[in-house]
């Protein structure tokens, strides 16, 4: 690449650089400082960067910087740039950037951050590029830029019909004055021709031919394969193993005991078996006979946690207060009715379709660890592996591969640490570590189980006068950054009830825990929306009516500092509009349903998206629940950037939530997970998928992410529908069919 043609501080906010590509053409790079604070997990504001090149043949290349895990980011971010650039989408190529947070800003897939973080800046970059191309054309023709138009990568002079392509102008444009990205006019949304269009996934044409694009498809000359045996009991330590017996197995190259370093998020004790074929490596594990010191954790079980939690809830008093207002004692003393219920949800695993894997090669001459990693947090993985190996960060090179699903599992990079430790022990040999599905199910960082005792006081008019929650959760040892075993201290409906008191008690555990798609919300939605359905029933009304009454007359909360800068506060107006929409879509209250079918409702606000959902279910005599239809109304801002990806995310999230309601739970006994594979961790299959009707309710807000917020409300919609169909309350997940069986 080329000499820098121009650098200038174009505004306080954005540094835009234009340079000439080696063979001619334009390279535009933009640095947008400080809008992505907590997304990196650090307090430091990190820049957000973009790279676009236009070659003389008109080919436009945009660097996709965030990991693609199936959420559509690799297609969506370039759409924003291409739109304002007025590019021809068919000429846009997208290449995946390596992990380099100094170059690209935070590279992360998680938290539905990417859309709100990039919505304005990426468009500004595109618009600035377009302005420079216009400027170059104006100079060439000796006219003013404002007299020219652009469309699909071509500049036209309407006065004489002359045209120049972006490719023809690219080299000149590199010498144009760089405009202030903050001042260039962005398009009127009615002129969008890429944003809002159904655009297929950028890698899809490769996927249908089975081309190698995932982490586990990485192939390097001389590569060997590794399997990693770790303790089934969490927190156990390695004592000994029959390394020689495993090494004598066919195809096995080496067997290495690896001492742990850091916690389960980094490296746990284990034994690596390395062979010329992964199946042979994995097979030889059976000869290891590892002896583990299970320590104090070998007695832990889900049943034990449940007993402890129930005892806490029965005792009535939370160990610590989270939040309190008004006088709950007086409200309960004078209540006409009290609703009192215990809720529970289980541990869950992520099980993305592509098992955990990572390829690594230790280059002994340069002292560099090179890695190919399907991860949601490449920067975090790079930093943490560097720390483990005692290397400077730039001596760990991470190539970001496409991931076969994430769901939050790949926020944690334990597999990268394992691969790095193994590769370090086999210098100059590329090693591909692959986990079995059993390793994955038993070695996850689980969605925490949780328990809630909720009480509500109703006055004689059926008005909710007080609410109490005793949350029983886990004390996560060393949980740094995001702690998934928590709840917001003002969780809805706290702000809308005059007297309220939330508290919690914690249990000790060594079970590793992490964020699962819509973390905390996926559990709390079930608990609170199911409980509020009970309250509505006792008050002689229904859940949508109760929710609308609770927020009646309430104003939007002011904007607040959030994960990615200023974000809108909770807005009851948006809540009202999605609730009304879902009610209308499902014909709620008026629907004539087949015999035995019933509807249930759920609403939830998470990741800046408002979703109201209605499920239609029936329950068989054997207690089996079938979800027939789901109606979903969502408000994620003004614009749906790519309706293809958006609908897929929402429908997938709904089925994911239905799976959590109907069938998923991770169980522990003797300190270890007893589930192992898809037969006893039953991810929904095609016959489970209902008809799903989705409508987006646009609002005057910047677009926000869709990977997560559609999931939480479907769970209570299903459980509340089961109550409507059977009169039985579901207070524990997954739904127990024995509870519902009538024959």
């Amino acid at each position, binding site marked *: 690449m080329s000499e820098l043609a121009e650098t200038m501080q174009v505004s306080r906010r954005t540094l835009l650089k234009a340079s000439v590509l080696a063979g001619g053409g334009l390279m535009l790079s933009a640095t947008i400082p400080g809008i992505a604070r907590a997304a990196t997990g650090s307090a430091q504001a990190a820049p957000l960067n973009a790279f676009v090149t236009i070659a003389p043949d008109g080919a436009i290349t945009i660097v996709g910087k965030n990991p693609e895990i199936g959420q559509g980011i690799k297609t969506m971010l370039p759409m924003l740039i291409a739109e304002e650039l007025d590019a021809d989408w068919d000429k846009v190529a997208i290449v995946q950037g390596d992990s380099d947070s100094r170059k690209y800003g935070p590279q992360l897939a998680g938290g539905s951050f990417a859309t709100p973080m990039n919505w304005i800046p990426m468009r500004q970059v595109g618009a600035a590029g377009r302005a420079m191309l216009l400027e170059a054309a104006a100079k060439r023709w000796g006219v003013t830029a404002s007299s020219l138009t652009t469309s699909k990568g071509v500049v036209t002079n309407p006065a004489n019909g002359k045209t120049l392509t972006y490719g023809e102008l690219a080299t000149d444009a590199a010498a144009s004055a760089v405009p202030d990205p903050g001042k260039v006019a962005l398009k009127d949304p009615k002129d969008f021709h890429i944003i809002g269009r159904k655009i297929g996934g950028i890698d899809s044409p490769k996927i249908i031919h*089975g081309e190698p694009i995932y982490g586990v498809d990485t192939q390097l000359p001389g590569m060997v394969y590794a399997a990693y045996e770790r303790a089934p009991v969490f927190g156990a330590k390695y004592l000994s193993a029959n390394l020689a017996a495993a090494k004598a197995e066919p195809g096995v190259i080496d067997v290495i005991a690896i001492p742990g370093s850091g916690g389960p998020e980094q490296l746990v004790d284990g034994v690596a078996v390395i062979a010329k074929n992964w199946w042979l490596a994995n097979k030889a594990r059976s000869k290891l006979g590892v002896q583990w010191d299970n320590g104090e954790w070998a007695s832990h079980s889900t049943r034990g946690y449940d007993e402890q939690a129930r005892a806490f809830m029965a005792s009535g008093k939370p160990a610590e207060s989270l939040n309190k207002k008004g006088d709950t004692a007086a409200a309960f003393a004078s209540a006409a009715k009290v609703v009192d219920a215990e809720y529970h949800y289980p541990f869950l695993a992520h099980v993305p379709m592509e098992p955990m894997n990572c390829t690594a090669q230790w280059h002994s001459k340069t002292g560099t660890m090179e890695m190919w990693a399907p991860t949601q947090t490449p920067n975090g993985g790079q930093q943490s592996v560097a720390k483990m190996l005692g290397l400077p960060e730039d001596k760990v090179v991470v190539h970001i591969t496409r991931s076969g699903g994430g769901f939050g599992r790949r926020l944690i990079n334990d597999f990268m640490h394992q691969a790095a430790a193994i590769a370090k022990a086999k210098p100059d040999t590329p090693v591909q570590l692959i986990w079995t599905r059993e390793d994955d199910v038993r070695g996850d960082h689980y969605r925490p189980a949780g328990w809630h005792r909720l009480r509500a006081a109703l006055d004689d008019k059926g008005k909710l006068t007080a609410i109490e929650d005793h949350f029983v959760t886990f004390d996560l040892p060393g949980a740094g950054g995001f702690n998934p075993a928590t709840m917001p201290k003002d969780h809805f409906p706290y702000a809308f009830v005059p007297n309220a008191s939330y508290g919690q008690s914690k249990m000790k555990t060594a079970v590793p825990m992490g964020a699962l798609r819509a973390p905390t919300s996926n559990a709390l939605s079930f608990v609170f929306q199911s409980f509020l359905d009970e309250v509505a029933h006792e008050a002689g009304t229904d859940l949508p009516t109760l929710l609308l009454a609770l927020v009646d007359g309430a104003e939007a909360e002011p904007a607040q500092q959030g994960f990615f800068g200023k974000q809108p506060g909770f807005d009851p107006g948006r809540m009202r509009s999605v609730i009304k929409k879902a009610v209308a879509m499902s014909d709620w209250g008026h629907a004539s349903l087949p015999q035995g079918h019933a509807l249930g409702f759920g609403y939830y606000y998470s990741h800046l998206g408002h979703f109201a959902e209605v499920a239609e279910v029936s329950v068989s005599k054997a207690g089996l629940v079938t979800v027939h239809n789901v109606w979903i109304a969502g408000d994620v801002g003004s614009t749906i950037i790519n309706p293809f990806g958006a609908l897929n995310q929402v429908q997938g999230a709904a089925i994911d939530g239905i799976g959590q309601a109907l069938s998923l739970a991770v169980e522990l006994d003797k300190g270890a997970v007893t589930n192992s594979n898809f037969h006893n961790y039953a991810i929904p299959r095609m016959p489970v998928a209902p008809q799903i009707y989705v409508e987006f309710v646009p609002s005057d807000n910047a677009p926000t992410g869709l990977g997560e917020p559609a999931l939480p409300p479907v769970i209570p919609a299903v459980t509340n529908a089961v109550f409507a169909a059977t009169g039985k309350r579901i207070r524990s997940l997954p739904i127990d069919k024995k509870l519902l069986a009538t024959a």
Partner: protein
Amino acid sequence: MATLTINGETRTLDVPDDMPLLWALRNELGMVGTKFGCGMGLCGACTVHVDGVATRSCSAPVGSLAGKKISTIEHLGETPLGRALQKAWLDVDVMQCGYCQAGQLMTASALLAKNPNPSQAEVDSAMQGNICRCACYGRIREAIQIAAKEGATADV
């Protein structure tokens, strides 16, 4: 030592007879389009055709495959039906992460080869061995029906 016919070519492999086809394809032949998801015949990610029948390659030892015709996702585009499915997959933008889709396409093409006009119940039943963790089930159903319609007209 095993001799296999894969996508019309004869391949000789120096591997134990009990090695599953999946790992012979992926690690010995570098054909990584066929995916590993569970290793137990539970998810369908590894589906290939053996004599035209959708088969879980993670559970098919190479020793059992001598003399049989194996075809994989890399070969799907060689048949009109495969191309119709691939096109439908793109037209409705079936996939999210895409990792399961090689297996979905292989199962779907075996289904349509046998039953060119399946009902939704028949589609659901044929496809239920293929997990899509991203749950793109609605679009897989839709794409199969589109390909079925196109296949029918193409054959006339």
